[in-house]
C-alpha cells in the first residue's frame, strides 16, 4: 500500500493557510486496487524494536536534540514566564508608544507603550497552550473516529468517511471567521474548540489508513482467529502499530495551529485581550510595519522559532520511524 510512506508528508498540508486539505488516503482503501509493490512492509513487523530503534536514532540526531531543547525551553517559559521577564505585560505607558530598544527594554515598546519583551515572553504560554491543546484534541478525536472507521469498515466506514469529507470541505480560515466572530469569551477555549472541530478530519484519515494497514497484518489475523475480542484487538495489537503516523502528523500540525492563531487575530477573530498572545501582537504590529518593525519582529520571530521547532521535531521523528530512510 502506498499510503504509509507519504501520508505524514501529505498531512502536513492540512493546517496550512488554506485549510482543510489533507488528503491522506482519500478513497484509496475502498477501491479495488491492486496491492502496492515493494513498499508496505512498514514499521509494524517489529513494534518494540521500531520504537527503540527510533529512539536510538533520535538521540544521535542533532536536529532532534536542538528542537527538543527549544521546545523544553518554551514549555518552561510558558509555565514560569517570570523566570526571565520581571515586568507586567499589561502595564503600558502610551507616552513610550513605538519606541525602540533601550536599556531595560531590549525589544522596545509596542503601539500602546507596552514592553515588547515582556509581552513576547508572556505570549509563549498562550501560543503553546493553543498549539498543544488543539493538537491533543484533534489527535484524540480524529484517531478515535478514524480508527473506528478503519477497524469496523463497512457501513461505519462509509458514514464516518463521508462525515470526514463534510468537515474537510469547509475551508479552515473561513470556518474560523464565521464561528469565532460570534464568540464573546476572552479565553483560549473557543479558538481551541474551533481548531478541533475543523482539524480532526486530517488525523482521522491518517488514523483510518494506518488502522486498515495494521488490521491486515498476519499477527492481527492470527489473534482474531484465536478469538480475541474487538477491544483487545484494537488496544493490544492495532493501536501500538497505527499510532506512529498520527504522532508524526500531530507534531507537525502543532506548529501550524500556532500559526493559525495569528492569522485569526489578523482577521479580527482571534484571541481577545487581556489575553497576551503572539497572534494578537503580530496582528496589531502588522499595521506599524513601516514605522516600528521591531514590534513585528520579536513576536513573529518567537512564533516562527516555535513553529520551526515543532515541525523539525516532527520531521526528525518521522525519519526515525521510517525504516526505509535508514
Amino acid at each position: 500500500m502506498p499510503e504509509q510512506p507519504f501520508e505524514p508528508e501529505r498531512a502536513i498540508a492540512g493546517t496550512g493557510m488554506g485549510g482543510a486539505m489533507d488528503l491522506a488516503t482519500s478513497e484509496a482503501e475502498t477501491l479495488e486496487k491492486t496491492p502496492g509493490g515493494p513498499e508496505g512492509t512498514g514499521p509494524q513487523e517489529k513494534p518494540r524494536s521500531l520504537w527503540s530503534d527510533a529512539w536510538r536514532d533520535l538521540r544521535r540526531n542533532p536536529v532532534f536534540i536542538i528542537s527538543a531543547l527549544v521546545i523544553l525551553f518554551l514549555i518552561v517559559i510558558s509555565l514560569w514566564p517570570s523566570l526571565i521577564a520581571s515586568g507586567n505585560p499589561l502595564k503600558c505607558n502610551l507616552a513610550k508608544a513605538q519606541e525602540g530598544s533601550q536599556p531595560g527594554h531590549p525589544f522596545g515598546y509596542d503601539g500602546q507603550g507596552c514592553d515588547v519583551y515582556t509581552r513576547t515572553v508572556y505570549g509563549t504560554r498562550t501560543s503553546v497552550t493553543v498549539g498543544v491543546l488543539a493538537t491533543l484534541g484533534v489527535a484524540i478525536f480524529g484517531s478515535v473516529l478514524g480508527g473506528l472507521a478503519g477497524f469496523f469498515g463497512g457501513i461505519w466506514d462509509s458514514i464516518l468517511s463521508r462525515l470526514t469529507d463534510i468537515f474537510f470541505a469547509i475551508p479552515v480560515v473561513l470556518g474560523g471567521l464565521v464561528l469565532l466572530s460570534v464568540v464573546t469569551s476572552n479565553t483560549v477555549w473557543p479558538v481551541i474548540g474551533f481548531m478541533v472541530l475543523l482539524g480532526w478530519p486530517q488525523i482521522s484519515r491518517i488514523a483510518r489508513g494506518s488502522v486498515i494497514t495494521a488490521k491486515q497484518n498476519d499477527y492481527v489475523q492470527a489473534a482474531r482467529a484465536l478469538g480475541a475480542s474487538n477491544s483487545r484487538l484494537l488496544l493490544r495489537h492495532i493501536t501500538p502499530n497505527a499510532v506512529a503516523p498520527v504522532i508524526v502528523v500531530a507534531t507537525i500540525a502543532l506548529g501550524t495551529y500556532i500559526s493559525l492563531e495569528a492569522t485569526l487575530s489578523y482577521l479580527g477573530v482571534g484571541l481577545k485581550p487581556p489575553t497576551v498572545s503572539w497572534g494578537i501582537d503580530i496582528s496589531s504590529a502588522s499595521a506599524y510595519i513601516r514605522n516600528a518593525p521591531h514590534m513585528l519582529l520579536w513576536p513573529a520571530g518567537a512564533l516562527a522559532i516555535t513553529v520551526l521547532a515543532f515541525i523539525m521535531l516532527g520531521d526528525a521523528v518521522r525519519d526515525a520511524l521510517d525504516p526505509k530512510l535508514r
Partner: protein
Amino acid sequence: MRGATHAKWAACAAAVALAATACGSSGGSSSGGGDGSAVLSASWGDPQNPLEPANTNEVQGGKVLDMVFRGLKRYNAKTGKAEDMLADKIETTDSQNFTVTIKSGWKFSNGEAVTAKSFVDAWNYGASLKNNQKNAYFFGYIDGYDKVHPDSGSQSATTLSGLKVTGTDTFTIKLTQKFSTFPDTLGYAAYSPLPSTFFSDHAAWLKKPVGNGPYTIESYTKGSQMQLKKWDGYTNADKAQNGGVTLKVYTDNNTAYTDLMAGNLDLVDDIPASQLKNVKSDLGGRYINTPAGIIQTLAFPYYDKDWNKSGSEKVRQGLSMAINRDQITDTIFQKTRTPATDWTSPVLGTAGGFQDGLCGDSCKYDPTEAKKLVQEGGGLPGGQVKITYNADTGSHKEWVDAVCNSINNALGNDKACVGNPVGTFADFRNQIGQHKMTGPFRAGWQMDYPLIQNFLQPLYYTNASSNDGQWSNKDFDKLVDEANAETDTGKAIKLFQEAEGVVRDNMAAIPLWYQNGSAGYSDRLSNVALNPFSVPVYNEIKVG
C-alpha cells in the same frame, strides 16, 4: 535537467511581468491632462445597502449619492450651513406647515425635468413601509407617517397625507409638530428627488442610478468599482471641475494608502491611524485634516441597574477623568481627533450650538480625582469595566486598548478595564439592540445634518432611535421639546444647550473626541477638500 530549466523560465517570466507592471504603475488610472477632462481615482468601500437615497445610511453609499444627486438644500462644504440648492424658497408662518418652491430648469441626467412631483414621489417612496427604506424615519415628522409606516401591522396608506403637490414647482409639507429648523434638515440625501424611471423600471435604475447631480454613473462593477463621469448637461455653478471619478473598493484602508503612495490611486479619504505618522514624509503638503461632524463617545447600558443607580454618575465621571484624551489623540490618532469638551461638534460653530468646555473638569484628565470619584460612586460594577466595540471596521481596537490602559493606570489596577471586541458590526448592533451590554460601549455619531438637535435628540431623548443605552431623563426631554417648538433659532439653541447641561450633569455618555476627516491625495490633484461629513468634495477637485 528539465525541471531546472522550467524554474529558470518561470523566474524570467516573473521578472518580465514585474518590470512590465512597474512601468505601468506610474500613470495612475487616467489619461491625464489639465483641461478638466481628466479622471481621478478615489478609495471607496462597498456600499452596504442598495443605492436608493432613502436607503443609504453609511458614508460609502453617501459618497455616490452626493455626486449623483442634488436636493432642496445643500450643506456648504466649508461652513456646514444649509444653503438653497434646488429650493427657491421654503416658507412657513407657524414652523409646522411649509410651502416649498423649487427652481425651474433643473433636469435629471436622462433629460426629465425635476418637478415638485419628483420630490413628493421620492419622499412617499422613502417613507412607505413596503419599500424597506432604512432611512424612512427621516420622514417621521411629516403628517401621516404613522399610516404609511406603522410600528407594527400593515400600512393603511401608501402616501404621506402631509405632502401635497400644489403646482409644477410647488408643494406643501405638514409636520406633526412644530420643528423650526426642519428646512435645514432637507440637505440630507434621503430627501433627494427621484426621476420617474426609478418607479417604472426599478431594477434598471438600481443597476445604474440616475439623478440630477453633477456626475452620472458610467459603469458599476459590483463590489469592485464604480466609474462616474462628469455630466455635461449639468448647468449649476457647482459643476464638476474634473472629467470624472473612479471609485475603487478597498477592504483595508491600509492597502488604499499603500496604493496612494505607489501612485496607483489619487485620493484616500480615510487614512489608517497607523500611517498618520508618515503622512508628512510620504505626502508632504498633500494631506488635509479638517473637522467633521463626528463625535466618539462611550455609552452606558442604563437598562443594567448597576449603571442606573444613585452614585453611578460619579463612576462615569471618574472614568471620564481617568481617560487621558490629549495623549491618546496625539499618540494613537496623531491629532486627527480633538479631545471632546462637549457632546456636539465644532463644525456646528458657536452660533450653531457648539460650546467649547461645556463638559468642564469632568472631561479633563485627573487620575487622583478619577480614583476618588469611582470610589465615592461605589466602585466599578463587578470590579471591572469591559468596553465593547466591533473589531471588523474602523480600527477601534487601538483606541479602546489605549483608553483601557489609561483607566488602568489612573485607577492603579491593571484589570480595571478591558476591551471586549465583537467580531462583526452586525453582531455588535445585535447585542446592543438586545440590551446585552454590561458596561460601556463604543458609540460613534456622525451627524445627518449640522444642527445641535441632531447631536442630542436622537441619542439622549427617551426611546429615541439611537438612544442605545436607554438613557431617560424628564428634564432633558422637556427642554428638547421646548427647543423644537421654539421658532427663534437663537433661543432654540440656548434651550438645546441647557438640555446638553443635563446630559453633562448625569454624564449620560462619556465624550471622547471629535473626529476629523483626513485625506491624502496624489500630486495630480489640487483643490481637494472634505465637507463637514468627511466626504471629499469631488466636484471641486482639479486634476493635472
